[in-house]
């Protein structure tokens, strides 16, 4: 089951509004390598894992990613706070505003809707864990790109923290992969 804790995992603060940055940040909400893709990957792959270690890890990281989604959505909203109509239009945000106002929605920054095709659940534990390693690297890279796109130290701080978490997840998945590979090799009968 799932529980919700009424707090962010890590603080989200902005120094100033920045509509363009809000749009870029949306990629980590509804984009291909964003937190939703990560969460949905892991929370469904766990059903086909042979080892308790892997079931535990995928469940727990998948859950953490939901908390990251919340952080990204909060960042999106704060970056838009106080933005005027003209500022939104100038940033190319008019279309989004017409459909969603300033509510976070599951799109990437070019307006493509989130899709299950951003996820994988091959059902083969080794294939899925390799996929997850790649997913964490892509998330890390995206955060690095976002960090480059802003000068706001508060925004950078939150993004850097989220990037760090992806690196930790990558290490954990590496360990799970090793355990699953060892297990699979030990089961093989030739």
């Amino acid at each position, binding site marked *: 089951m799932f529980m919700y804790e009424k707090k962010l*995992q890590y603080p989200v603060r902005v120094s100033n509004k920045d509509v363009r940055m809000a749009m870029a940040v949306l990629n980590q909400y509804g984009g291909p390598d964003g937190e939703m893709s990560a969460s949905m990957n892991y929370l469904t792959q766990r059903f086909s894992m042979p080892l308790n270690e892997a079931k535990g890890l995928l469940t727990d990281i998948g859950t953490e990613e939901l908390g990251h989604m919340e952080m990204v959505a*909060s960042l999106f909203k704060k970056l838009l706070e*106080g933005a005027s109509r003209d500022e939104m239009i100038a940033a190319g945000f008019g279309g989004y505003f017409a459909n969603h106002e300033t509510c976070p929605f599951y799109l990437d920054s070019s307006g493509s809707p989130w899709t299950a095709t951003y996820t994988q659940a091959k059902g083969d534990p080794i294939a899925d864990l390799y996929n997850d390693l790649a997913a964490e690297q892509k998330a890390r890279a995206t955060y690095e790109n976002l960090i480059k796109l802003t000068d706001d130290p508060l925004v950078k701080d939150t993004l850097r923290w989220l990037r760090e978490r992806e690196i930790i997840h990558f290490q954990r998945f590496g*360990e799970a992969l090793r355990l699953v590979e060892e297990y699979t090799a030990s089961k093989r009968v030739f």
Partner: protein
Amino acid sequence: MIGRNEQSNRQKMMLHNIMQYQVAVLDLALYLDTHPNDPVALYRHKAYTQQLKQLRDEYEMMYGPLNNYSMETGETWRYINSPWPWEWDNK
């Protein structure tokens, strides 16, 4: 009730404390997921969760439950009170 951003510094500080301990606990939990018998990690998780429980109990007594499964010790369901997580640190 319409929420105004009433963030007393004390509440913010207490919540930040809880956030820090929770991240430490989660990090240990993720590590334990793939190293379930590691004695150092087990010890640390135990120590941090003990401390975290104290911090949470104190916070929730003063400000209300942080989730649906914590007891509401007050006279009203303070769980829904402002600020919500995305409203902290707002101007």
